[in-house]
């Protein structure tokens, strides 16, 4: 945009942007602060913002009650595993939809997306009994497979959009250069789509990480991820906000850190320039 902005306009825009950012970030900030409060301070009215007795007792309490590391490892295994498997299926699928479309391709994409509109509870019984009979309850393979299936439509859809922007000429050049379909996808398409694949991956990791409905219902101990851990802190003895906050902070910390570091990766566009 070549619009000229005066300094005052830019300052106003910045202030608004910061306010909006703060508004969006506030719940997380509040949770972070609460996790360092005593339960009494957490309930205090008017709320105490910064001047309270800072304590790490809640974190110690979380650690003593549950095995944080095991839950965290489960979360990582589930979201990364589901994601890698999903990409392996989705890249060829998106390739064929983007570069060898048929009359039905658009319908197929819509149908895939429509499966996301069905509430999970609708198929819960069916899946639960399938898993029960198949001895897949509380297993990483079973839940990981389910998370992959759930996110597959979104992964395919996103990759399809990114692939559409890659000039077909370049893939055709690879074909003329003697590349097999497999080599075309591995050596030409995938490296060119790295920014797209990275952001797809991040989104799908986050979605799997946040998944609670299925993990709460299908796992118990062995395959329970962090979402289960948070849930375990909520009900039994009433709500302990400070403790719950500490558990939540621990649960979102890994994903927040990954997101923070991959920001630049996502924005950097290293693809285009060879085609005028």
């Amino acid at each position: 945009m070549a619009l000229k902005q005066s300094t005052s306009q830019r300052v106003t825009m910045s202030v608004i942007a910061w306010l909006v950012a703060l508004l969006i970030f506030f719940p997380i900030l509040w949770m972070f602060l609460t996790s360092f409060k005593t339960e009494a301070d957490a309930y205090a009215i008017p709320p105490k913002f910064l001047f309270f007795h800072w304590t790490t007792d809640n974190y110690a309490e979380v650690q003593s009650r549950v095995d944080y590391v095991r839950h965290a490892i489960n979360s990582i295994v589930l979201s990364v595993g589901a994601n890698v498997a999903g990409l392996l299926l989705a890249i060829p699928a998106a390739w064929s939809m983007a570069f060898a479309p048929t009359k039905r391709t658009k319908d197929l994409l819509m149908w895939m997306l429509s499966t996301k509109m069905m509430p999970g509870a609708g198929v819960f019984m069916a899946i639960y009994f399938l898993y029960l009979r198949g001895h897949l309850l509380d297993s990483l393979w079973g839940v990981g497979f389910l998370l992959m299936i759930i996110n597959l439509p979104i992964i395919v859809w996103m990759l399809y959009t990114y692939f559409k922007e890659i000039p077909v000429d370049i893939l055709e050049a690879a074909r003329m250069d003697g590349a097999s379909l497999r080599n075309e996808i591995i050596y030409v398409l995938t490296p060119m789509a790295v920014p797209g694949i990275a952001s797809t991956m991040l989104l799908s990791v986050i979605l799997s990480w946040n998944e609670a409905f299925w993990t709460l219902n299908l796992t118990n101990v062995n395959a329970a991820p962090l979402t289960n851990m948070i849930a375990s802190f909520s009900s039994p003895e009433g709500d302990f906000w400070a403790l719950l906050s500490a558990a939540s902070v621990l649960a979102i910390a890994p994903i927040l850190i990954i997101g923070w570091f991959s920001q630049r990766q996502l924005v950097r566009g290293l693809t285009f320039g060879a085609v005028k």
Partner: protein
Amino acid sequence: MGSIELKNVRKDFGAISVINDVSFKVDDGEFTVFVGPSGCGKSTLLRLIAGLEDISSGQILIDGKDVSNVGPAQRGLSMVFQSYALYPHMTVRNNIAFALKMAKQPKKVIDEKVKKAAAILNLTDYLERRPRQLSGGQRQRVAIGRAIVREPAAFLFDEPLSNLDAALRVQMRLEIGDLHQNLKTTMIYVTHDQVEAMTMADKIVVLNKGAVAQIGSPLELYNKPNGLFVARFIGSPTMNIISGAPAAKRNAASIGIRPEHVEFSTTAGEWPCKVRLSEHLGADTFVYVEGAATGPLTVRLEGEAPVEPGQAVYVTPKENRLHRFDKDGRSLA
């Protein structure tokens, strides 16, 4: 070796026929140009030969072997794309080496061949750069380099110069010409620019609406077009086409005379005309005149011709250079 033969090739997209019963042969080592207006099917024809599109019926033979159902990778052809289509994530070296790597050639051989190709194309200093760090002409050379290392049976060029500016286009035209002289490999070149076609080709295939209008050497097409379409398409400025009385007098539905094949006089001649405009190019002058019997005509005069708009002049066609056409636009003997 690299002769390419098309037998009754058709290509339909749904109900639309894009290539309609095309047959011809490109001999080994020949520089053949497909030329025609946009939408005539010339790029599609090239893509059919490349194998990037499947033919609907007919046969394509390379060195006498039917490759109609063979994939692009196995046809042994190289293609240079209009958009260059370089791999943006690879260096120039890897771009050129890609085909050799796909063919699993030993590393030493690859290095050798890339070095040789880079030397031919003046790319030696740019081997470690990426495509986006190169100028248009350099990118074009990389695309050509990628094509030559494969030592293909034939090169296919799809309007390779249309993204370059005029000066560079002339230079690259010469370089491609030189390349053909040196390699003596079959080349098929697609362009909509009849000047490129005339200057580069051994043989021109003029296409119109998905069918071959005429095949011949540049001068054959210039001197003996088989109909109105080729007559108009080949030659610049365009041939003057005249119907009515002057044509009837010569027993034709219409007649054609090239701007360079007329006598021009200010005193006497067959067709009295009025000058509308003249363009001075230095070596030539194009005079646009309006004749009562003939309608608008273009005349090409050598050197500088002092004519004024509105001036009365006379144009007389050279009879032995006149082309006669019947009512369907076919040439009359």
